[in-house]
């Protein structure tokens, strides 16, 4: 079976966790036809230091900002070459110092269609190419303009990703590049200052680009991988000195992490996922570290025999 965690921090870099998809919209693994893999995930993230523009600092009036995220994720195989994935997170944020109120709520629904359009033997292994399209939109009327404690940024997004996976024996590497379009958002105030004044409640949100590289070991029982992720906002502005962050800031982040997935010998439908990552470079984001854990269960919805849902 086929799932692992991805640490694709796509938009919510301030919260540091990003939209956590335990599902595999960013890895080289597919579900079998009619197989549905679902599971809950818990993520804990925190940061003490952040980048105000390019200046790294702490803030005694925030202390440590932490984010707890609980998600339901799923991945359904329409065919073994075309999967649909979803994710619904509940997010809660908190600052350990200062007086700012915590925020909580259901955040954004994400949907992905993942298509493996090519797979062939090459270079003594197996090469697969994927195209992935994603959409996301807020599921509740949460507040975007209360960074760094907002639970999300409210943009509707559409993303397009090209991904390649190379597997040789039990070792693999996967690389992808994603372009994310982000819609403008509306905030509760009627004017705001970026690098100039805006007399409107609408905020133009710059698009973003993501690069993700992962290498590791992959077998039926165990998957272990190291992941590099980079999110770059294509535009936006820097937080000015001692100012508050804003949704349309130029938020960039690079992180390094590991993921492990283990499938239980007595119960092959069930797998356990755990991992963590840390931010190694950033701009207008918190220097977050994440740990997460999840349990996934595979159901066969075809009504036929409980056939295997082994990868590929």
């Amino acid at each position, binding site marked *: 079976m086929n799932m692992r965690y991805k640490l694709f921090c796509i938009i919510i870099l301030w919260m540091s966790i990003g939209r956590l998809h335990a599902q595999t919209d960013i890895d080289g693994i597919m579900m079998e036809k009619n197989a549905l893999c679902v599971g809950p995930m818990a993520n804990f993230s925190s940061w003490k230091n952040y980048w105000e523009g390019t200046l790294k600092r702490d803030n*005694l009036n925030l202390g440590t900002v932490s984010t707890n995220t609980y998600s339901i994720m799923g991945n359904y195989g329409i065919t073994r070459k075309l999967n649909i994935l979803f994710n619904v997170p509940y997010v809660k944020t908190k600052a350990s110092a200062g007086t700012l*109120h915590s925020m909580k709520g259901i955040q954004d629904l994400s949907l992905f269609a993942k298509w493996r359009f090519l797979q062939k033997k090459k270079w003594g292994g197996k090469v697969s190419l994927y195209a992935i399209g994603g959409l996301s939109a807020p599921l509740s009327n949460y507040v975007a303009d209360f960074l760094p404690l907002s639970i999300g940024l409210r943009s509707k997004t559409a993303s397009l990703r090209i991904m390649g996976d190379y597997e040789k024996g039990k070792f693999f590497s996967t690389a992808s590049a994603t372009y994310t379009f982000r819609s403008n958002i509306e905030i*509760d105030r009627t004017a705001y200052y970026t690098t100039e004044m*805006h007399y409107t409640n609408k905020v133009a949100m710059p698009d973003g680009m993501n690069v993700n590289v992962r290498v590791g070991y992959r077998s039926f029982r165990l998957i272990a991988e190291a992941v590099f992720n980079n999110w770059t906002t294509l535009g936006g502005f820097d937080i000015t000195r001692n100012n508050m962050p804003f949704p349309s800031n130029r938020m960039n982040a690079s992180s390094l992490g590991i993921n492990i997935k283990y499938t239980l010998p007595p119960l092959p439908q069930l797998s356990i996922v755990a991992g963590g990552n840390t931010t190694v470079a950033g701009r207008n984001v918190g220097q977050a570290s994440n740990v997460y854990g999840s349990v996934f269960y595979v159901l066969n919805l075809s009504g036929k025999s409980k056939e295997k849902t082994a990868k590929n």
Partner: protein
Amino acid sequence: MKKSIFLAIIAAGSAIFLNSCKKDVEGRTDDIPALNPANIDINAGIWKPILLTGPTEFPVPAPIAVNTPEYIAQINEIKSWQTDLTKEEKDLVKYWGAGAVLRWNEILRELVAKHNLPPYQNADGTYPFPNANNPLAYPQFPFANPPYAARAYAYVAASQYDALVAAWHYKKLYNRPAPYVTDPTVQVLIPRSALPSYPSEDAVVASASVEMLKLLFPGDQDYINQKFEEHKKARLIAGANVRSDLEAGEVLGKSVAQKFVTRARNDRAGAAIGNQTLWTQLENDAIARGEIPWYSLELPKRPPMLPLFGKVRAFLFDSLTAISLRPGPPPSTGSEQMRRETEEVYNYIKNPTRENTRIVHFWADGAGTYTPPGHWDAIAAEDFIKKNFSEVRWARNMALLNMTLMDAGIVCWDTKYFYFNPRPTQLNPSIKTLTGIPNFPAYISGHSTFSGAAARILGHIIPERANDYDAMAKEASLSRLVGGIHYKSDCEVGLIVGKNVGEYAVSRARTDGAE
């Protein structure tokens, strides 16, 4: 290919999804029509000025006659501009055509928002203060906090008004028509007006603003001068003014503003920061009265914001009147009423509703914004646009509003430091707030005082909106309670005090000759 079709649908869906929301963001006043006053207020030269002894205090020389070669050369200058206008030049005409007072108020709001940032602490936990003589060094001058901003809005608006009263006097006296009247072959890119064009009202407003802003935002001179040059150019290429209209207006605006600059240098605002001795004394005085004194809730503790701003010279009344407007004391910090009011705040913020959060954020106007006085200027400006006021009436109404806001700030700050009352979060640290807690004592609420004052004078200026302004003021006031920032007493008394200050502006409005 089932999958290809499926993906095509996804792609098409994404495109629709994005097209529905990806647009350039346009400001509410980007695309408004050119100002076309319903009434040119030709007799505004007799309106009562604020500081000027009269409209002729700074004489404006008679203009050159329209049949002189020099004037004809100035007409030709307009024509040569108009032969080949770029898109940028047309955009300038459109932008400035919306109104000089409006646009300079918007520029001022922008400067306030840019500079409304509390300085970062020193390594030893003290705080640096901005230095007007070195405005670009960190922390940049000014820290345009609400009192500073209220005063800035008032001075700019009041100087524009006085300069325009003088300008209107000379417009009527000399009665020189606009270039498109003296020479019908001059194109006019804005609405025609029967108002005499000498001296140019736009140059008067711009020049008075520039002169005031040199004092108030000395680090932003390049930006301000760029706007000034663009404004004057817009008037020329629109065919609205010849160069001598602009030059006379520029001299007049600057002269009048210098009188306001002199007042500003001596209005005691420069000493409003106080010093450590004063800050300690405020604390000790509160303790001596048997009260829990206010403490800064910032880390490290920041000195209180402008504790002597209450001593600044008001525009609408003298200092004894200012003191007489100070309300009675808040509930004692040890009283049962204070305990109940603190609990009330806690109950509001324990599980805030989305609607309450919206109200808090709508009215927060905290760090990095144009402050509550700027918010009321924005509200007023958007209503004034619909009214098609003449420039001089725009300026008069903005001056009334902003003098009210400044004087409300003075009375509010006097009250805050007279009682030195703690914030709800100081009495109950489990009160977390939906916006930042301002770094000054609680009683009385600044938002409530500003809003009560603004609603009173705006309700006089536009009576059919009076109930709406009152409702807005109440909501602004309530936002501080449900946001965890203020007790109910702070808000309720603040609204009343604000309204009382507003009455002084209403009295002035009734007798300034404009009604």
